[in-house]
Each structure stands twice: as structure tokens, then as C-alpha cells.
């Protein structure tokens, strides 16, 4: 079953900064077509006047005292960096 959908895999993969192989694109288009077809049933629900829920128990205005606290030491914070030099993360050249 492949449902009618206007899911443009190339566009969405670009938005997600995710390189997909042609095989992945073809497979995901079919599988997500099925999932989206299943999700279509939500259109049957009357949601007029219903407020959206982002959190089941929203907590508002969470303030912390404005007091400086020790963070991770530099060595610990950089321990997992793929490349580092002079206490900095090394990345490919960004500006020509």
C-alpha cells in the first residue's frame, strides 16, 4: 500500500541535513506513505475549539536564582570532541 502523499523526501532530507541514499529515499517514501495514510484518520476528529496540548502538566515561569555556578571543566567538555586544539573544537574551514 502506498498512499497518496506530497511528501517530498529530497526537500525534507535537505531541511533535516541528512544525506540519504537513493535506496533509502525509495524505501522511506513507501514506508512513510503507509504511516501518513494511517495518520490520515486524525482528520476524522472534530478538534474545533480544542486547545492544543504541548505538555501534559505544563510548568510556567521557572526561574533560577541569578548565581554563577561552576560548569564542566574545559578538558571534560572537550573530551568527546572529534577534533580539538588549544582548548577549542576544530571544524572545517567556514569562511573562505
Amino acid at each position, binding site marked *: 500500500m502506498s498512499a497518496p502523499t506530497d*511528501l517530498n*523526501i529530497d*526537500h*525534507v*532530507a535537505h*531541511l*533535516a*541535513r*541528512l*544525506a*540519504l541514499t537513493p535506496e*533509502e529515499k525509495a524505501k*522511506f517514501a513507501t*514506508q*512513510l506513505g*503507509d*504511516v*501518513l495514510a*494511517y*495518520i490520515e*484518520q*486524525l*482528520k476524522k*476528529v472534530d*478538534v474545533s475549539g*480544542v*486547545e*492544543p*496540548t*504541548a*505538555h*501534559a*502538566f505544563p*510548568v510556567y515561569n*521557572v526561574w*533560577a536564582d541569578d548565581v554563577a555556578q561552576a560548569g*564542566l571543566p574545559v578538558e*571534560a*567538555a572537550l*573530551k*568527546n*570532541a*572529534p*577534533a580539538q586544539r588549544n582548548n577549542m*573544537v576544530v*571544524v*572545517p*574551514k*567556514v569562511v573562505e
Partner: protein
Amino acid sequence: MSSELFYKPVTELSGLLETKKVSSVDLTQAVIARTKAVDTKVKAFNSFDEADALAQARASDERRAARQARGPLDGIPVGIKDVIAVNGQPLTASSKMLANFVSPYDATVTKKLKNAGAICWGRLNLDEFAMGSSTENSAFHTTSNPYDLERVPGGSSGGSAAAVAAGEAIVSLGSDTGGSIRQPAALCNVVGFKPTYGLVSRYGLIAFASSLDQIGPFSRSVEDAAITLGAIAGHDPLDSTSFKTDIPNYRAELTKRKGPWRLGIPKEYFGQGLDPEVAAAVEKAISHYEKLGCEIKNVSLPHTEYGVGVYYIIATAECSSNLARYDGIRYGHRSKDAKDIVDLYFKSRAEGFGQEVKRRIILGTYVLSSGYYDAYYLRAQKVRTLIRQDFLNAYKEVDAILTPTSPTPAFKKGEKAANPLAMYLSDIYTIGVNLAGLPGMSIPCGFSKSGLPIGLQLIGQPFQEAELLAIAHAYEKAHDWASKTPNL
């Protein structure tokens, strides 16, 4: 209960430790030996650090010798899902993306366990980034169900469930976003508890879907679940969604609360797709409650059928946002053949993430993208409100709701791997609880003819964990499913 040390509950072990009949080193060695003996078959662990566990055990024994023991968990090995940070230990989320990541800090739950004297033991396997219902999405290996090695343990916290079921940990921690604690607990004959959203801090839990994720315990008894939950619950300034609420002594409340309770049976959870053996076991458990004098009432949760659809919009939307942080820059996998910085993002993510994670990022990005947000994400959030109201309406008449945890017992490895939608539907009874933010648990309630465990799900009112545990305890007192340990 089995006579082996590694199969004893915390309630018994803490007595043995207290009276010095057993040391924490003895117990930890027994758990390590058991793990070495069976984990080549069960594969619950991604890794474990024997020397570190024994050092923690020696420290516990020294505390006890100095009369400074910190309570029932002091000296008890607690397995930890490999998505919860333990300082100095690997934190992989069972993903290639984090295969070499070592956590530089403790999650709040880890800190609390350590404060309670528990031995943080091993890194337990899961579906990559907790996305899945079988552990087959782990980038490293699939965990086996200890009751049938050809079958899955459930997921995503499959390693946490299997380790407790197989005696490779006394209790363990998992996380539950759409059923990831309760479903594997049901499939592995253990107790699994998902707290009310906000009861347990998420600080140091690798984020999947932040409005749904909660950490909770696996154990071989309800009382052990109460002890472990009590150790990890409580407000945390480091998690702005954590709730300020009093944490009762859950263990003491177990025997104080005697019912009889009004228990709701939602007809929507007993329809098409429910395995007849699961239905029979759950109905038998319901009639036990009736014998205890509980009032059994039919209730309706009319929006149940939309739960899976709402979940796969909201959870994927949140995951596409949360997983944007894995860009190959500051930590995690970095591609070696990127030609510039943007290419580095694309290739690092393509190489680091597995199929299910990519699929969900694509779906989540799509439902949040310009032109589709209202039709999918906003509508899903509104239907989420209706699902939540269904439960709150039911709670006007009942104290808790009883359902099957999973529509079927453990399925075979590979059976649903090629069909994401079929896999998603295996969470149909657990997802509503996360969407509504409620506490839910699974307790063992029988076995199929072929010897596969079956779970009963109990769903409670917000922040009424003590009541829910007491209801579960009332059933467990008259049944001894935990004594049926797997043949390994």
C-alpha cells in the same frame, strides 16, 4: 523465589546485607558471574565495568561496617539503560553516532542512585535513541528474550527488562516515551513502572521526545519498584519540566492503602488485534480484583484509536528537533570525507544514524515543515488534549484503569522489522499514558501456553503513584509469577 542470590529481590537482599550474611561484594560478584554466564545468549548489555562495580561494592561494605548504610538500595547492583548518563562510563544510546562517547557527568537519577548507595552496573541495550519496540534497532546487537531466545525482549528498554529477568541486575532503570518500560516488562515477566510526567528528572537522559520521556524502574517485585522509584523521584532545578510535589514513602504506603478500589476497564483496549491468551490472562487478573472486593466498572476512552497516529506525529516532531544537535561538530560521529562544513552535517548524520532514526527524523521534519504544521502537528496536539480528557473523565468514576500492556506476547526477531507501521501498532495500549502524562505500570499476570510472559497494565491518576503501586501489590501478593524464572 529462586535461591540464587542474583534472583532475590531488594527487600530480601537488603536484610541479608544489613545482618552481614552477605556483603555487597559477594552480591555484586554473583551478579557479574551470572552476567558472564548468560549474557552471550541474552545480550542485554552494551558494556559493563567489572572493576568499577566492585569498587562501588567495597565502598558500600565499608559504609555498612561504619554503620553509615544509606537504606535498602545500599550495595544493590542497578542496571542502567545506555541512554542515562553515568560519569566516566560510555553513553551510546545504542547508536554509531555515540559509539565512542563517554559521559562527563551524572544524570540526576544516577546521582540519586549513588546517594542511595546503589551500585551503578553496566550499560543496557536499547533501540537506537530509544526508538523502537524490540531492540532490533540497536546499532550493536539485538537483545534476546530470556524466556525464548528466538524472540525479542520488547523495547526500547529491552536490555533493562531482559537483564532483570535473567538475574543480570537486581533492578534496572529504563525510559518510557510510548511504552518503552511497560512493553518490555510485560514481554519479560518483570515489573516496569513509568511515573507521571515530571515526577522524575530527565536531566542527563538523552532526549528523544521531551514532552513524553520519563525514566522509571524495572524490578522483580512491586515493592522493589516502590523502593527504586522513591530513590529517583523528586523535583530537580536542572529539569524545568520537573514537578514540585511531595514524594511519599512509596514502600510504606503499599500496606497502608488497602482499597477496595474502583477499577475501570476500557472497552477500546479489548478489541480487534488482542491475542486471546493475553485477553484471558488479563480478564483473570481483573476477576481477582473483583474477588478482593473491588468495583469493576466499564469505562470508555473514545479517542484511543487515534493514539498511535498522534504519537507518531508528536514524538517524531520532537525527535527531529532534539536530534538536530548531532551535527558531527562538538561530539559524536564525524564523517571523514566531508568537503565543507555543511557537507559535514549531512554526511556525519547519514553515517551516524540508523534506519529507524532517519525515518523518524524525516517524518518529524515533514510534519513540522512550512505548509504542513497545522494539518499534522497542531492537529495532533489538539487530539492529544482529547485523549488526555478521556482519561481525566474516566477518573471521575474510577481510581485506576486496567488493560493489557501489549496486544501480544513477545514476537519473533525479524517478524516486524521490515514493517514500521506494524511495529508502531505494538505500542497501541501504552501510548495513551504518555500522551496524557499519567503514571502506568506493567506487572506479570501469567504465561501463554508456549511459556511466554503476559503483562497487566495499571494506569493511575496524575501523581498518585502510591495508590497505583498499592493496587499492583494487592494482586502480586496472591500470585507468584516472578518465581517462574527463564531456563538459561
